[in-house]
Structure formats: C-alpha cells, structure tokens
C-alpha cells in the first residue's frame, strides 16, 4: 500500500504526457528534526525492538533537544538524584545512532567533576578521591569506559557507527564527598561530535592515570615566587628550618613548608592564612592531558588519622589563564596518601598559589597550618 500510494503521487506528475516545457518551483527543505529523529539520533537507549530501555527515562527532550537529567527536574523518574556517599550505575541510558548515509566516528566530551580531595571513599572500590566522579561506558559494561576528556573523533577514544547503527551509553556516578542537592556537572555541557571523515578504527591509547604517557612527563615546581608565612596558632613564629623554608615546597622530596595562620586584630584569625606562590620554568609548564585527568598534584605531609584537618585554597595562573589566578578547590591533609589532585582549567599553567584555610578552632596552639610538600603535574617534553 505504501508503495502504491507513492507511485500514484508520482504517476500524477509523470503521467501528464508530452509537454514543451515545465517550470516548477521546488522547495529546498532542510528540516530541523528533534534530536531523537535527526541524522545523528540522540535519544533514550532502545532495545532491538526499538522500545526504550528502562534507564532511557533519564533522557529528557526539551524543545526537541536531548538532555540527560538525574535530578528532580526529570518528571519521568520519582527519585530526585543519586544517593549521596554512594556508587550508582545506570546501564543503557542514552543512545547515539547514525541515521545518515555514511559511517561516522562519534566522540563525547564533558567537563567531568572530580571526587573532592579528602572524600571518604570506601576501600572496596578501585577509585579514590581525586579520580573522576562520573564515568561513561558502553552499553551495560562499566569495564568499557568512554574517554570524554576532549572532543576528537579521530582519537581512538571515539567509536565508529555504521549507517543504521546505534551505541548505547551508560554512566557510573561516584557521589562521594559532594553536598546533597548539588549538580555534579554544575551546568557543564555534554559535547557530541560525529564526523564521517574521522578515523577511529584504532584501539584506545593505554595511558593509565598514574603514569605519564606519550610526550608528557611528571614535573615539580622549580622556584618560589612569593612566600608570606603565617604563625603558629599560639602566635609564635614558625622558627624551624624544616618548616619555614619555602624552597622546601619545590621539587619532590620529603621536606615541606608550613603555611601558618594569620591572626587578626581582634584576637581571632583571618580566613586566609599564610600564602605561598611557586613557579614552573618556561620549559616545565603544566599542560592538560588529552586522555584521562589533567592533574595538578598538591602533596602534603600524610597526617596521622585522627589528626585535625588542615586545608589550603589552590589557585593556578599562567599563559592559559591570561595570567589571572583561577580557583581550583581545596587541598586537605585528609586526601588519600596526602595527594590532592585537581583538573587544570587551561594550559599552560606556570604558577600555583596556596593559601591556608585551616580552621584554627580544631587545632592546638603549636599547629602551623597546611604543610606543602610538593606541587607537581604534567609537562610536555
């Protein structure tokens, strides 16, 4: 019947018989389709019968635009979000389909949050604070993660889609150390890029998070730009060469520099305590990584468990930020192994500023704030 109807329409046109000339205006149609019907379909994951899978409910369509919502804004699910201090996995949430005419490579990118340093992650998991808080994976297999670090369908993190083919994507949420009611992505956008000219046939690069790869190597701060050390909580100066030499924070060794507290005029303390700015030489500037996390590593003395928390505000600057300091977060002695990790907002970075934010009220009079042992990251060889 379908074919017949089409043919009838056609025959009415073609059947007019002999003619001298025909002049006809025709529209050039470029329809804007909803994401779920577009050449690159973005929609809820469907099964082999094209029926939506259960976790497709976490996909929302607003004005034809696809989105992912695990929040109370999503009226298709009753939960308001993932449980705090919990690991949640959602298999087969959304799918990308190639409804065009040639095979393509697809890649995603999104600025994924990091599990805050010092978060209490149970030992049974193979991730810790400083690692990615959300991991995307193919279908229902968390062991087959998708690299979302940057947008490059050529890179072997991208995956191929033949014409008519779909790939479902799931996500793992490691909600440890976040406030409840918080959006982990803080408004970040999921970028999707499909390109017919890309080549994603190779296997993904093997570049474990703890090892430098390719043209990258680990480096540590070379010099001190500025040091404004505070005092001990009791008011005494930090007169101890093991703690008051800012050069101790450069390089990678076991010496450290204590930031110290800053008393105010009324017998209390300023919010900002002592401060230290360290620098990386021009051939040693910190760069982002194209695969996995970028990592700025602030190492501190590994406090005894039960010792009160010491914290420092972490800011970075460099050509990549036009010289402006950009806040990255807070380093803490409660981080696993004393290693605080942060994502770089831009590259290159050549300055790191640390400002003590330790709460004096939980410390004794001899304490001297956050201890900076080393400041490191990745540089391009």
């Amino acid at each position, binding site marked *: 019947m379908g*074919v017949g109807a*089409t*043919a009838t329409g*056609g*025959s009415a046109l*073609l*059947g007019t018989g002999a003619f001298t000339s025909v002049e006809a205006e025709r529209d050039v*149609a*470029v329809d804007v389709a909803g994401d779920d019907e*577009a*050449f*690159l379909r*973005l929609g809820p994951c469907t099964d082999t019968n094209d029926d939506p899978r*259960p*976790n*497709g409910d976490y996909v929302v369509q607003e004005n034809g*635009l*696809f*989105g*992912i*919502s*695990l*929040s*109370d804004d999503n009226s*298709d*699910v*009753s*939960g*308001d*979000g*993932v*449980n*705090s*201090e*919990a690991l949640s*996995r959602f298999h087969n949430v959304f799918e990308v389909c190639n*409804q*065009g*005419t*040639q095979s*393509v490579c697809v890649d995603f990118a999104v600025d994924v949050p990091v599990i805050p340093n010092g978060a209490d992650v*149970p030992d049974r998991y193979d991730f810790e604070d400083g690692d990615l808080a959300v991991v995307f994976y193919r279908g229902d297999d968390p062991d087959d993660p998708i690299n979302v670090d940057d947008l490059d369908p050529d890179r072997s993190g991208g995956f191929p889609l033949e014409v008519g083919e779909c790939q479902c994507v799931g996500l793992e*949420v490691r909600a440890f150390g976040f406030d*409840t*009611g*918080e*959006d*982990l*992505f803080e*408004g*970040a*956008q*999921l*970028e*999707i*890029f*499909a*390109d*017919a*000219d890309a080549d994603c046939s190779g296997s993904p690069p093997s570049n474990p998070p703890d090892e430098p790869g390719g043209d990258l190597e680990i480096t540590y701060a070379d010099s001190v730009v500025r040091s404004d050390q505070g005092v001990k909580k009791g008011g005494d100066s930090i007169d101890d060469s093991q703690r008051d030499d800012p050069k101790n924070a450069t390089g990678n060794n076991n010496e450290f520099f204590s930031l110290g507290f800053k008393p105010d005029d009324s017998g209390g303390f300023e919010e900002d305590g002592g401060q230290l700015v360290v620098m990386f030489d021009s051939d040693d500037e910190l760069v982002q990584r194209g695969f996995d996390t970028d990592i700025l590593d602030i190492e501190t003395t590994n406090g005894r468990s039960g010792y009160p928390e010491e914290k420092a505000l972490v800011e970075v600057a460099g050509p990549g930020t036009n010289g402006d300091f950009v806040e990255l977060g807070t380093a803490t002695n409660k981080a696993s192994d004393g290693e605080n990790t942060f994502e770089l907002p831009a590259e290159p970075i050549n300055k790191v500023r640390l400002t003590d934010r330790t709460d004096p009220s939980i410390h004794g009079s001899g304490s001297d704030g956050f201890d900076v042992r080393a400041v490191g990251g990745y540089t391009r060889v």
Partner: protein
Amino acid sequence: MQRRNFLIGAVSTAIGGSALVGSGAFTSVQADRTISVNTADDTDAVLAIRADSGANATEYVDTSGGTVSLDFTSTDSPGDGSGVNANATTVFDDLLNVENQGTQAVIVGHRQNFGPQKGALYHEDYEDGSITRVGDVPGEFDEVPSSIGSPDNNITNLDTASLKNLAVLEPGDVLEDIGFFVTPGTNPATDFIDGQITFTAGAEPSNIGL
C-alpha cells in the same frame, strides 16, 4: 505491462528523491547538550532510604545529614536507657523503609562491615504478600543459623541470605518495616564502632555482587 513498467519508474523516482535528500546527511554533526546529575538526600534519592514512622524510628534513626544512620547506644526520652541488655536478643523493629525510585525492578539487600554474628537488618514485609522475592516462594524463609539469633528470617544481608529470598522492588515499591536485631553478648556501644551498613540494589544478581 506498460502500467507495471510505469509503476517501477515511479517507484525508482521516489527512491532517487530520497537518496538525494539523504545525501545531505551528514558529514559531521557537533552538538552541545545539557547533562545534570544531582546528589539527593537518602530520603529522595534513586534508592530512597527513609526512617519508618513510629517510636523506634524516631529514637534510633538519624536522617539529618542527608544520609541515614542508626544509633542504639542511648535513648533520649522518655526513657533514659543507655544500651541493650546483655545476653539477650534485642529487636528494634520498624526503623527504615526503602523505596525503588529508579526505572527498573531491582533486588535489594545490604552488607555490613561488622560480621554476621552481632546482628543484622531484617524486614517484615513478606507476610502480607506485598513484596515479591527473587525466588518468589512465600512462607519458606531461609533457615538462618541459630547462632545469629532471632528473628530468624527475612534478613537482607547479601552475604548470608539466600538469593531466592531477597526482596525484589519494582519502581515505586517500598520495602517497609526494616528492623535491626542485636544478638546476645553484643554491645552496640563497642561492637558497632565505625559499623557500616551498605544498602545495595541492582537489576541482576551480578550487579550486587552475587
């Protein structure tokens, strides 16, 4: 025959048309879309964990920090007890309920880091038939070793309960009246220090480590 040829011609025209339209699709597409993943209090989350109604829940369950915790070391009012009796099985019923606020049926249970002997969570929700179990065998509960004490059925400990007896919650289903029992000789003030109960739910046994 003419007519049939004509039809074929017309059909091929139609196909040609669609091939034309389709050739524009697509060399590359780049799109930015929203993604939000919120954390929620246990009471509102994908696996909602809530305090039951009633005196025991009021006394022993704390949901104030966004995550649920249990504290059996003392009572505030009206009594002023400071712990369980020695050498007795103490049962705290109606403490918690768990609701599946996700999108598919899940098997629900828990694990505990203080071993199976000192106590466990259990629930009282099979008897009225409102909850299905994996094996769906009403009335035939696992025989729990007597050393674990009473109540001797319906425990939700994934390390000791039999898979077939675990509760299955469809979206919107609530596992109600979850209680906790403490076995003789256990002192909650010391034996449960840093004790943690981990609720685990998944669509397949393999998702919850079974």
